[in-house]
């Protein structure tokens, strides 16, 4: 019988990386520099690959012939539990880098801890993905500094992006009820120490970037309960286009 908490937790982790990977893949073919086009696609591939591992695990828990594709392709908006930050539009390269960096600050330390989960499969997925996330964090942190401390224009764009995105950062560290219950058994990651590490990294890189964190941050949240931003429906419209047009076919 499936453990509902673990199942929800698995989907929540999967949804984060699925949607961010989907967003990043929108850059493929449109990057600001050919080399960065390739780099962003690499990150997108990593993230969707991680999502795939997690969805496969969810399908295994649920049984009933479920597959990895049932979750991304057949759930409607209210059933998705990703954090709001990952569904934000790509915007310019500054917005994309800031969104990526904020997520990486959470993701890397989170995976590092997840690799020590008492749940064997979670630990396996964590250990596999943490290597990728470490590279992502290095990549996005370097670009934070380069663009923050680059030209006047790049600095202004980055500062704007920080102002726009910081409202979504804190949600990553708010555990759901299911998550909190799983922390006790060592299955889920305790977010409190992750938050400390993530903020330390954030502050270090912000300082080096010559950027400033906004003083008044109001945390937007809701994604974990299925209450998303208006962008989300359009993501699903594209992502699920084939399933909606031709239900239950093999491609």
């Amino acid at each position, binding site marked *: 019988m499936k453990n509902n908490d673990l199942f929800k937790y698995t989907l929540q982790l999967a949804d984060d990386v699925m949607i961010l990977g989907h967003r990043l893949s929108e850059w493929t073919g449109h990057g600001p*520099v*050919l*080399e960065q086009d*390739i*780099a962003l696609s*690499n990150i997108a591939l990593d993230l969707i690959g991680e999502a795939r591992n997690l969805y496969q695990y969810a399908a295994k828990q649920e049984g009933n012939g479920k597959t990895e594709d049932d979750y991304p392709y057949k759930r409607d908006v209210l059933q998705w539990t990703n954090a709001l930050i990952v569904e934000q539009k790509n915007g310019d390269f500054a917005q994309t880098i800031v969104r990526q960096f904020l997520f990486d600050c959470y993701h890397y330390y989170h995976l590092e801890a997840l690799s020590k989960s008492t749940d064997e499969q979670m630990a396996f997925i964590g250990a596999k993905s943490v290597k990728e996330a470490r*590279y992502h964090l*290095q*990549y996005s942190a*370097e670009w934070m500094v*380069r663009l923050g401390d680059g030209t006047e224009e790049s600095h202004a764009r980055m500062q704007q992006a920080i102002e726009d995105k910081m409202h979504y950062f804190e949600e990553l560290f708010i555990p759901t009820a299911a998550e909190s219950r799983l922390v006790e058994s060592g299955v889920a990651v305790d977010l409190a120490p992750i938050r400390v590490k993530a903020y330390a990294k954030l502050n270090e890189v912000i300082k080096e970037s010559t950027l400033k964190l906004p003083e008044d941050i109001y945390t937007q949240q809701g994604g974990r309960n299925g209450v998303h931003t208006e962008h989300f429906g359009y993501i699903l419209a594209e992502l699920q286009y084939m399933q909606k047009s031709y239900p239950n076919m093999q491609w």
Partner: protein
Amino acid sequence: MNKNLPLYEIFIRSKNGLHHKHVGSLHASDPQMAIMNARDVYTRRQEGISIWVIESKDITASNPEDSDAFYAPAEDKVYRHPTFYDLPDEVKHM
């Protein structure tokens, strides 16, 4: 300001025990970015475990017009090769 990012030459060691080998070039604003780019561009299929980068303009190359003077004189130095020396068949491995 020059709008072009400088060109870097990329060298990859495919595994320990082998030399770094020239694989191509790419553009980057600094050596650190060149390393990151090289990782993304030239090692997507596990082609390498170590990367060297150098800005193309910093490479000094020999002149192809000198090739006769440089390389032809080695042609008749047959005494540098083991087959130049006659040994009896009984000495099997030397």
